């Protein structure tokens, strides 16, 4: 049997290590208010959610649009269980401090956020996964809308704080190490989301490279053949749906930490579309593509294309069309261009190590 070259994997590990080292170093050197860190934090969060969506849409062939709903569950579970007891009367001011009077450690709450999302996925999966393609997308979209309304429902208030926001729970900035005077000595607020995302995405990659990953891909490629090869469709689809939702839940919790507040009305269908956009631009069926394009997307929407929303003067000439909301028009055009001309996205179905593999093969042929 041919042995696979280890070099591409090695290069990949070096790149990943360099990125983490770079993030850590940049955080110590650059001012904490730099736009770069906003992009990196949100990018890391979206990367995890995009990969979790890709696990379903790109690797299992289940077209689900419930991502925002599962993120919402994750964000709320995280928020509800981590607000310090002392702060609860302030947060839950309309509900007498709420019913939950304890706080969990962050790591535990993160896991719980994922588990809660996975549990809901299991429940809706029972009826919904019997549906095919478009119908499944519509059903999951409906779920996301319903859960958003239920959370804001007044009788749920003592738990979810109704339509008021949850706040004062630990966020990314609380990971910075401070000295006795309260000054930050080591900045970790960007490295931590990178670590959480990295571990989760790593787990997804491990899953995809295992026998279960092959089974999921076979369902995507040909359901009938997969079933004829002994793969239990219902079981594996449910598994993929729950795992995807688990990580979407953790992604939601990370988004809560990033925003420092949670409010149901932010988890709209538009958020699911943003993530779908990231997946499509990155390449349906490529983890690397999803990660890369989520940073690209966040950087473009939060930073590089911000100028489109404001009046711009070149000398005394006012650039036409630029006003609040124009950014979204440009985004729509980008989507159309991608869908029409780059249907396979940035990466297609390739992963980071494949890039070096191909180059090496070409070299060998020369």
């Amino acid at each position, binding site marked *: *049997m*041919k042995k696979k070259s280890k070099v591409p994997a090695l290069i990949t590990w070096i790149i990943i290590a360099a990125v983490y080292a770079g993030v850590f170093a940049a955080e110590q050197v650059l001012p904490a208010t730099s736009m770069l860190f906003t992009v990196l934090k949100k990018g890391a969060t979206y990367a995890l959610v995009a990969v979790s969506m890709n696990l379903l849409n790109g690797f299992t062939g289940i077209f689900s649009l419930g991502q925002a709903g599962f993120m919402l569950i994750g964000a709320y579970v995280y928020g509800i269980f981590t607000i310090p007891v002392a702060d609860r009367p302030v947060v839950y001011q309309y509900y007498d401090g709420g019913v939950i009077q304890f706080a969990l450690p962050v790591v535990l709450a993160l896991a719980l956020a994922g588990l809660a999302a996975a549990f809901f996925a299991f429940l809706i999966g029972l009826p919904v996964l019997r549906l095919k393609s478009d119908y499944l997308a519509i059903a999951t979209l409906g779920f996301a809308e319903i859960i958003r309304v239920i959370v804001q429902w007044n009788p749920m208030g003592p738990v979810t704080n109704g339509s008021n926001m949850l706040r004062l729970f630990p966020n990314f900035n609380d990971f910075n190490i401070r000295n006795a005077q309260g000054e930050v000595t080591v900045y970790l607020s960007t490295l931590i989301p990178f670590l959480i995302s990295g571990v989760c995405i790593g*787990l997804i990659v*491990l*899953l995809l*490279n*295992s*026998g*279960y990953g*092959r*089974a999921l*891909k*076979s369902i*995507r*490629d*040909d359901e*009938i*053949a*997969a*079933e*004829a*090869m*002994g*793969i*239990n*469709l*219902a079981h594996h689809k449910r*598994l993929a749906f729950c795992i995807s939702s688990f990580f979407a839940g953790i992604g939601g919790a990370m988004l809560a930490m990033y925003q420092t507040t949670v409010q149901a009305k932010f988890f709209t269908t538009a958020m699911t579309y943003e993530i779908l956009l990231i997946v499509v631009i990155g390449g349906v*069926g490529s983890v690397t593509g999803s990660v890369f394009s989520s940073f690209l997307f966040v950087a473009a929407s939060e930073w590089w294309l911000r100028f489109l929303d404001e009046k711009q003067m070149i000398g005394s000439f006012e650039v036409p069309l630029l006003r609040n909301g124009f950014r979204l028009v440009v985004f729509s055009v980008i989507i159309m261009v991608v869908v029409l001309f780059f249907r396979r996205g940035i990466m297609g*179905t390739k992963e980071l190590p494949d890039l070096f593999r191909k180059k090496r093969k070409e070299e060998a042929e020369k």
Partner: protein
Amino acid sequence: MSEANVQTVADMQTAGIPVLKLEHLTMQFGGVIAVNDFSMHIDQGEIVALIGPNGAGKTTAFNCVTSVYQPTGGRIYFKDQEIGSGRIHHTPDRITRMGIARTFQNIRLFSGMTVMDNVMTAMHLRRRSNLVTQMLHLNADEERKNREKAWKLLKTVGLTDVAEELATSLPYGKQRLLEIARALATDPSLLLLDEPAAGMNPQETAELGQFIVRIKNEFDLTVFMIEHHMNLVMDISDRIYVLDFGKPIANGTPEEVQQNPVVIAAYLGVDEE
């Protein structure tokens, strides 16, 4: 030969329990009866062919055996177990787990996966590891064994040199062989081949015939195949069943079937004076 003698020969043939037995199998779609009262059996180690003109219901019969359809009438037995009837229906993956593997008439490979991974996927059903051990790659031993087994299967069908290519990049004939290798990876005792020689030239077809006999012996299989290439069917089958418009019209050894006037009429059309 006296009638009593014929009886004993028949008894000897069915002494063991047949690997596959259909009893009055009927499959009706609305007003169309695709398979009509089809009874047959296959014994251990036989190669049995199912022939008939296009639209005769051959693939439908296969789909009933593999539980893609639930028969509307009759019973299907695998060894001593009833696996399909009006009251018993499993999902196709369970049928495969019991030991019935199949290939498809219109090739159904996993297009986004390599040749190797196509075969490896078919071993997923016999896994000993669970999700957690697989995810954390604690099943390296099993994975290595599976890879070796897959490699051996690819060697059997002569596809080791393209093991890391995409399955769909293979030429047609090789895709058919890969489908057989993938079916073998599920550890079947009964192999269903749906037109394995479709699209092959006479040379390739002859090779395929030898190949089917070889894997039958090597993997201790019983083979049930649908085929249109009469040379192949006559060469390697022990017995043949003929379907026409869903109805069984003849069965017997290749010689018997070849000379059966009903079969000839079905294939060539009846001469209307």
